[in-house]
């Protein structure tokens, strides 16, 4: 046997050696100090392990340590139970209130509006200083607005010059603005011209009563009904529907709206206020221009010496009169709209049979309907909860990080003290 074979033999427990193997091992060990020491080591190690006894104190000490650890764990678990309950209630309150807020206010339904400071002017635009108007005894230079007026005679009798208006437009805005500002004095404040339009949609189960009430409401507030449409037969036939277009004095419009909202039940309401100030004064300015032009033409007509001049002047005067009538009509239309607001009212009959049908539903159907409604509400609430949790996530992360840091600090302090 050589050392390698001896090493292999040592891998087996001695109890598994055969008699031949044992003799061979003993013979080799007698000749090889290294292998003899290896054999002695192995036998001694086995004996050391067999002789190892657990000290009596050891068993008692680890049992004591385990019990102490268990008691410490129980103390920690049951300490301050009210703290855990309070934390749970606080967390439930936060989530509940947050979900309710998200549900009620429809969080996330609209994108946030960013103020664009670059495009919004710091101050309202004042057009009065943008234009200069001069009356000059010189050839007229007309912009696009002036092109609507008949061309003034150029030249003519010696010394006669046509009246002209020079517009110096210092902004890129339309000529209509230039015209409207022609009469504006920078020091005067223009009166705002606002056209209000209101739209109401009403539902009713007492169609006849509410229809009569609406019909009389316009006159009650000094207004009138410009248009009225009805449809439906009522009773067991198609549901009835009526629409009104009313003109109500603007100063009494709010009172009218309050009264109309009290008829039936309000399904929808909208109001718009169009600022037509610029357009109004634009037309007003053009009217003034045409009037001045007509006045000048009438003066020229008296001084005309030839028939051809007279014909041309009359033609120009006729055109001016046409535009005067046109602009006057427009202004009157604006005045009417401003003085009397337009109100659109729809009155829709609700079936009275619907209420009766609900009482005829079976218990099962009612339960199903209630379950369906409850399910829809639950879905809406869950959606609101999800929105709230996502919205509050940055705060939760920050709070968790803070708690973690505090616990680490406390833990390290505890270790140092130990």
């Amino acid at each position: 046997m050589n050392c390698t074979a001896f090493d292999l033999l040592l891998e087996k427990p001695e109890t598994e050696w055969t008699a031949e193997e044992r003799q061979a091992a003993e013979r080799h060990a007698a000749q090889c100090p290294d292998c003899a020491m290896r054999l002695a080591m192995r036998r001694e190690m086995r004996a050391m392990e067999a002789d190892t006894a657990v000290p009596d104190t050891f068993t008692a000490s680890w049992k004591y340590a385990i019990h102490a650890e268990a008691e410490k764990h129980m103390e920690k678990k049951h300490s301050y139970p009210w703290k855990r309950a309070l934390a749970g209630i606080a967390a439930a309150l936060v989530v509940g209130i947050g979900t309710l807020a998200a549900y009620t206010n429809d969080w996330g339904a609209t994108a946030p509006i960013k103020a664009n400071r670059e495009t919004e002017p710091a101050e309202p635009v004042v057009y009065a200083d943008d234009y200069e108007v001069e009356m000059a005894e010189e050839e007229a230079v007309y912009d696009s607005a002036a092109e609507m007026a008949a061309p003034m005679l150029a030249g003519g009798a010696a010394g006669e010059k046509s009246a002209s208006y020079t517009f110096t437009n210092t902004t890129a805005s339309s000529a209509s603005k230039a015209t409207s500002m022609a009469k504006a004095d920078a020091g005067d404040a223009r009166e705002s011209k606002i056209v209000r339009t209101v739209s109401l949609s009403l539902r009713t189960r007492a169609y006849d009563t509410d229809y009569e009430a609406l019909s009389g409401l316009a006159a009650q507030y000094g207004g009138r009904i410009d248009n009225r449409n009805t449809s439906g037969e009522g009773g067991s036939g198609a549901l009835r529907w009526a629409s009104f277009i009313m003109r109500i004095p603007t100063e009494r419009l709010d009172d009218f709206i309050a009264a109309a909202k009290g008829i039936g039940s309000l399904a929808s309401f909208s109001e718009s206020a169009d600022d037509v100030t610029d357009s109004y004064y634009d037309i007003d300015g053009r009217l003034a221009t045409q009037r001045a032009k007509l006045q000048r033409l009438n003066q020229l007509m008296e001084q005309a010496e030839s028939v051809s001049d007279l014909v041309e002047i009359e033609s120009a005067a006729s055109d001016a009169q046409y535009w005067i009538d046109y602009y006057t009509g427009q202004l009157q239309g604006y005045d009417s709209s401003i003085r009397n607001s337009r109100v659109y009212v729809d009155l829709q009959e609700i079936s009275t049979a619907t209420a009766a049908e609900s009482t005829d539903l079976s218990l099962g159907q009612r339960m199903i309907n209630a379950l369906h409604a409850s399910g829809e509400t639950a879905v809406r609430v869950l959606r609101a909860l999800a929105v709230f949790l996502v919205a509050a996530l940055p705060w939760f992360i920050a709070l968790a990080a803070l708690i973690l840091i505090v616990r680490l600090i406390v833990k390290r302090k505890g270790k140092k003290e130990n």
Partner: protein
Amino acid sequence: MAVSIFNRRREKEPFEALIMRHERMIYSLCLRMMGNRQDAEDCAQEAILSAYRAYDGFRGQADAKTWLYRIAYNACVDALRRRKGDTSLEALRETGFDPAETRMAGPSETAERNDLRRQIQLAMDQLPPDQRAVMTLRDFQQLSYQEIAQITGMGEGTVKSRLSRARDKVKNILLHWEQNPSASVKENEGRQKE
């Protein structure tokens, strides 16, 4: 032999009962690793406490014996890292052992055996923790290479090579001391001073 801590109804064995069955094994490993009884008791108790804290999460992923061995091995390695210098001779002296006295005593079978045992322990104290561990688990506790690999986290090949080096080192130390009896004491005292 793998031991399941779960009974037929998949209930875990009470922790104390589990430790009672493996108490000697844990203590023996710690004794060989730490080299003295006091440190071995401390280390074994620490290992048992660690096992107690981790017991709730133990779902029988490995057999209980391997699991406990692993905890005990890690506890010993941590303790050895914390320990500075070779105090094994000092600790032996605290227990009443003095190598010089043993050398002066007359040879007897028991004395020779005790002498060899203590020299083996002293020689093992010279080994790094990983070699000490594999030697303890293989030559003392007769675990298989696979079990040792699971406990120490090494591969089987690594276990075998570490074991071979450990055996050679211990053998050479013992042979050196055998041939130079006084050197054994002086070397250890010198090492102690370092």
